[in-house]
């Protein structure tokens, strides 16, 4: 990737967003370094989803700025966010259950012949299959049959396919919204292992969760939101653990 280590991939400054009289987000700022994994934690209604929707282009900020690689960008839509190298894995995964693993990874940007012919181009199924096999191998995602409809895969496999799709689109940042909420213990472990590998591909990660224990394993830093306000930020080590928990539930106030 082009940015030097330490340079910010994403900077959010003073993000503020209200829905009617409800202030969902007040003056939240964050900085995400190249190849960094940031966990955003907080209770229900803390503003986690609103924050990522503003960064993924689904919502527009009332006030505040988003910088991508140093440039101020007004993200208009998820497609626009994608053009800026930002990809989101939604909680519902947004997979096509009736389509194969290969078709899902290339959905909307299928390889065609003649090259770059939209709509009426012929599908280059073989080329897509080999690229999908490659990226899944790289991410160490094991799916026995790339032509099986995604609806037949297990929860963990589906999550992995959704993450793999995001990673293959994203050049800078992948946002994961509660990636382990619906998974069992072992599948959670495997998905987190997959997330840990993403910085190797030069991609930064924001992972949203209400489960501190899970994200503590993979995150470099944890940011805590409470009632739309950023109440603290700390590395997820043993030293800070109890204080982070305190911030999440509101028992702890003040700096860490």
């Amino acid at each position, binding site marked *: 990737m082009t940015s030097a280590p330490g340079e910010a991939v994403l900077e959010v400054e003073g993000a503020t967003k209200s829905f009617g009289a409800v202030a969902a987000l007040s003056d939240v700022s964050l900085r995400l370094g190249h190849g960094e994994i940031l966990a955003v934690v907080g209770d229900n209604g803390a503003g986690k989803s609103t924050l990522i929707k503003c960064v993924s282009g689904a919502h527009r900020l009332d006030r505040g700025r988003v910088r991508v690689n140093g440039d101020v960008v007004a993200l208009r839509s998820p497609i626009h966010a994608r053009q800026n190298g930002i990809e989101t894995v939604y909680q519902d995964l947004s997979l096509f259950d009736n389509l194969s693993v290969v078709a899902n990874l290339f959905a*909307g940007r299928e390889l065609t012949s003649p090259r770059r012919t939209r709509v*009426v*181009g*012929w599908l280059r199924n073989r080329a897509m299959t080999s690229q999908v096999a490659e990226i899944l191998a790289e991410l160490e995602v094991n*799916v026995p049959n790339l032509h099986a*409809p995604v609806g037949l895969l297990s929860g963990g496999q589906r999550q992995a396919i959704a993450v793999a799709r995001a990673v293959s689109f994203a050049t800078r940042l992948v946002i994961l919204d509660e990636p382990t909420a619906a998974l069992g213990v072992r599948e959670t472990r495997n998905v987190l292992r997959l997330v840990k590998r993403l910085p190797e591909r030069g991609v930064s990660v924001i992972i949203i969760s209400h489960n501190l224990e899970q994200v503590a394993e993979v995150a470099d830093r944890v940011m805590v939101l409470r009632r739309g306000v950023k109440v603290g930020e700390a590395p997820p080590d043993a030293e800070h653990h109890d204080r982070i928990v305190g911030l999440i539930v509101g028992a702890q106030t003040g700096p860490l």
Partner: protein
Amino acid sequence: MSVPDADLAVPAGPRARQTGSAWLARRGTGLALRVVVLGPLLILAALWALLSILSPYFFTTLNITNLLQASSVVAILATGQLLIILTGAIDLSAGAVVALATVVGAKLAQSTHSGLLVVAAMLATGAAVGLANGVLIEKARLGSSFVVTLGMLSIATGLAFVVSDGSTITGLPALVDDVGSRDVGGLPISALVVMGFATAIAVLTLRLQWGRWVYAVGGNRDAGERVGIPVRAVSISVFVLGGLAAGLAGVIQAGLTDSGTASSGFNAELDAISAVVIGGATLTGGRGTVFGTLVGALILGTIHNGLNLLSVNLNWEPIVLGSVLILAIGADRLRAGFETRLRLRQAGHEDGSLA
């Protein structure tokens, strides 16, 4: 139940070599899957075998020619309907568009002798109604294809009565009559038209990016929007093609009778929808094939033909057809469950179930 082999993120290492019996089981699963996918075709084959036994006239060139000819209108309509159903929508106006196309063609034939012009006008009529359906649903954001096309059913029927003044207009150009009623060596031209149209649609849906998008929109419309598929344009395009199919069905219908009348095509959309569903598609979208749809249309046509040959009172026909539709859905549920189990096994879930 555990799923030892199907887990994700198993570190890449030397995978255990497949044993001979595992290989055999894999091949067996693949073979069984192929048979199960052919479900509707098996029903058709059973019907043909049964009718061959019950009637000496069934398996004759003349009768098969008749059967293919009589099935062709529904087959074309069903192929167009399939595209719309694949996206999760429905077109209730298709039968009325057939009627409108026949009277537009017949009316125009009174002032021109150009067969090509008449055919073009009939196709354009269908495509125009389809475009209107699509635009109303997607651009005017009315959303419900059921309601919009129900309204269009009424409008197109009314237009057909207005254009024809409620009477049957006879006399169409030779081109239209040939398409509807002539055959080449026992093979009706209408059947050839069906094959040509169906092949084209099959290629479009299976080989083009557009076709992938049709299945994607039916599978998960919201996800389609998120990954940048022009969902509304795809939806409009299937309605235009569905309308075009109805226009083409109108050409065959008009040619069969050498006339245009506002009452032709009555309820034909229901036969088309039945054919699509009997052919294995789901009304919720994302699943179905052109081949299955053609088989579905042939199953309906065969039942109609068989009841005639067996001299069953015609009043019974709708009852039989309706029962077959309901039975077909029941059978398809069973078949789909079986198919899912086989596919799970193929996907690596050893016991054919999700953990």
